[in-house]
């Protein structure tokens, strides 16, 4: 157990810059529970990582619209720094979604350095920088997929942020001084933290990364008044816990069962439920080591915020052979489906299917493919929501027979590949159109299993994947539109690379996204016709936001190369080796 007592030995490397005189007279914004619940009505702000608790990534701002977006230009830029490397990564990535509250922007780099900017005067004016002094090699050695931090959260007068080396840090909005911090993740066990915190009531919810390092995943709630743990919920069930009977081995595989929680969840304030996605079981490619459905890996869990109890769940890919993390976000939508009002949660799973589930009880509504190629199953059962090739009697799932055999034999080509049809990059929902826009990876790979002996255990801080994978084909991408009340894809456009940014939808009938080789792009929400493009000259691996100052609308994005593909699989994404890291904020306006 790691508590607040386990504070860092070294003093925090914190640099405090005093604000200019004019700024110091402005009152501090207070992020109340009410504001967070009604964030959609504050169209000039972006108060949550996902924009709102329902993760629509949609703004009602419409000054920028499909008729004038061709005139969009750079408004201002700001270098936030922080591209140095650590561990196995020669440079840090930039995947963060900035937040904006009442004219102040909060950006964060891969190492967790928070920068506050005053954006009220049509430019980014530096206010303060908070450097939490992340132990770069300690964390960077066990970060599978880059030095990344996906964003901060706001509560009351605090900015909450994580560090890759496993801490939750609370910083005062006005001064940039650390108020408290606590060690939650355990890098000595291969745990790191990249996720943006979710604020629910007076708690920050933290998720963990490390599914490739033999962790046992969890969600943890921290009381924001005291800075102490409120609850921890393990996502991999122990034998005496609900779901424990889905780990039927005799060597305690659950203890290294994976189940990371590294994408920020959603929250329904009326139902008082947190929805969070759980990652792949470990070891990734030796499912024979972990017979059983492996709950709650590859599942959506609905969690009681006050106790952390899992009220219900839905599992997408049981006894996973493919590394199809179930972590992707949940877009909460109230809509009609087959003439019935439904409280849905939409989840574009790594396994290539978009799922609509009932968020009141977790029951299945529909699933539809959103990628071009799926070969691991012939479809999803329209009643149960299980893969059609799932065998309820079997403890080891072979699905449609493409999974690797045990023992260093290369499998057939598996589609989608392990990056999934969609990875962590968020999709966007336009409630006025009832359309969901998904950033898609079109990729396949084969896998090779190197079995784990039943007697051997995972070594802390060593990879525990039991094998590797091979990319015989290039990856590409697409942007897909789904009519949610029909449950059908209506549009798809192809892109050269997988889309590694998120999607932003606006009431200006626009859909914004970005390419890994540096272009920010605006599409017509009605027909996905490209309307505007700007080359930033660096990688784009972060979702964009929109905000306003005195009714002038801005689009903002963190600009910098990040993610896994250029490091491990350059043969699948040739050309990205020519994209360099950077750490800038770019904003655009008319």
């Amino acid at each position, binding site marked *: 157990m790691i508590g607040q007592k386990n504070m860092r030995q070294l003093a925090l490397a914190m640099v405090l810059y005093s604000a200019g005189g004019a700024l110091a007279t402005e009152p501090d914004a207070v992020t109340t529970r009410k504001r967070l619940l009604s964030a959609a009505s504050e169209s000039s702000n972006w108060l949550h990582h996902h924009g709102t608790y329902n993760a629509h990534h949609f703004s009602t701002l419409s000054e920028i619209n499909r008729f004038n977006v061709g005139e969009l230009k750079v408004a201002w830029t700001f270098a936030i720094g922080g591209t140095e490397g650590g561990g*196995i990564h*020669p440079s840090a990535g930039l995947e963060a979604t900035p937040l904006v509250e009442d004219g102040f922007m909060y950006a964060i780099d891969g190492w967790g350095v928070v920068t506050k900017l005053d954006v009220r005067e049509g430019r980014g004016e530096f206010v303060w920088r908070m450097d939490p002094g992340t*132990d770069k*090699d*300690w964390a960077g*050695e066990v970060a*599978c*997929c880059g030095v990344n931090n996906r964003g901060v959260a706001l509560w009351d007068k605090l900015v909450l942020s994580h560090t890759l080396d496993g801490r939750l840090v609370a910083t005062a909005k006005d001064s940039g001084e650390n108020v408290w911090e606590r060690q939650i993740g355990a*890098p*000595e066990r291969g745990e790191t933290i990249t996720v943006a915190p979710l604020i629910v009531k007076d708690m920050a919810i933290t998720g963990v990364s490390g599914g*490739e390092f033999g962790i046992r995943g969890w969600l943890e709630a921290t009381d924001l008044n005291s800075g102490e743990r409120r609850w921890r919920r393990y996502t991999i069930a122990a034998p005496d816990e609900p779901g424990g009977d889905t780990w039927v081995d005799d060597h305690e595989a659950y203890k290294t069962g994976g189940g990371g929680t590294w994408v920020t969840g959603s929250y329904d304030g009326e139902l008082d439920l947190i929805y969070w996605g759980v990652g792949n079981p470990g*070891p990734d*490619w030796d499912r024979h080591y972990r017979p059983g459905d492996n709950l709650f890996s590859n599942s959506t869990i609905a969690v009681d915020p006050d106790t952390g109890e899992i009220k219900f769940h839905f599992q997408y890919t049981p006894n996973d052979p493919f590394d199809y993390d179930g972590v992707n976000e949940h877009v909460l939508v109230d809509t009609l489906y087959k003439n019935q009002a439904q409280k849905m949660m939409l989840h574009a799973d790594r396994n290539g299917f978009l799922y609509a589930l009932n968020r009141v009880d977790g029951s299945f509504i529909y699933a539809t493919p959103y990628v071009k190629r799926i070969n691991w199953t012939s479809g999803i059962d329209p009643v149960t929501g299980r893969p059609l090739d799932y065998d309820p009697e079997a403890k080891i799932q072979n699905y449609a027979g493409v999974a690797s055999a045990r023992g*260093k034999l290369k499998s057939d080509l598996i589609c989608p590949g392990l990056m999934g049809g969609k990875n962590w990059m968020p999709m966007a929902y336009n409630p006025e159109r009832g359309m969901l826009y998904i950033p898609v990876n079109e990729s396949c790979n084969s896998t*090779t299993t*190197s079995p784990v002996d039943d007697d051997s255990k995972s070594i802390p*801080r*060593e*990879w*525990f*994947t*039991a*094998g*590797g*994978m*091979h*990319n*015989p084909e290039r990856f590409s991408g697409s942007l897909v539109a789904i009519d949610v009340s029909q449950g059908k894809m209506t549009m798809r456009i192809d892109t050269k690379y997988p889309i590694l940014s998120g999607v932003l939808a606006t009431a200006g009938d626009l859909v914004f996204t970005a390419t890994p080789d540096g272009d920010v792009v605006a599409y017509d929400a009605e027909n996905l016709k490209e309307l505007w493009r700007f080359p930033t000259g660096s990688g784009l691996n972060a979702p964009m936001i929109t905000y306003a100052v005195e009714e002038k609308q801005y689009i903002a994005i963190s600009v910098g190369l990040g993610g*896994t593909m*250029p*490091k*491990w*699989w*350059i*043969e699948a994404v*040739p050309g990205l*080796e020519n994209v360099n890291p950077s750490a800038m904020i770019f904003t655009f306006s008319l």
Partner: protein
Amino acid sequence: MIAQQKRLPVRTRIIISLCVVLVSSTIHAEPNARLGKSIYKKANCVGCHKWHGGGGGSYGGLALSLRVTPLSREALILVVRCGRPGTNMPYHVRQIYKGADRECYGSNSASLGDATPPRARYFLRDRDIEAVVDYVRNNIQGRGAPNYGDCVAFWGEEATRCKHMAQSKLNGERKRK
């Protein structure tokens, strides 16, 4: 009369020549060791083969253990230059599978097809390849399980990982007593 220069005895001249070679190779060895370790990190050898060279699984694939491999210096240079067909070990010399001279295992991409190794993210110069191979041979190859000394040599004495390793060993010894 022009004075005649005395020539040094042959044996002395040989000894002096050998000393010059020894000194100059020592001068070159120091920057090459640093270069080798730097290449090991930047070229992502550390990603797949790990800091200790023991290999295993990762998102790069299943990597060979450089600690136990019996490959000679020449063979290691060849593998870094050309990758290994049918595996994820990439080639590090631009266009090496396109040439007509088939210097890689007598093959080119036409003859290997899908078994052609993937390309590395960054291509390396001959000097870089020799430096990283020498780094592996001098610091990794033929050693047993990675120990505290290996950790310090790679990460530095102040590294949390090495302090953690030392503490774990201490705890293990305390438990055994």
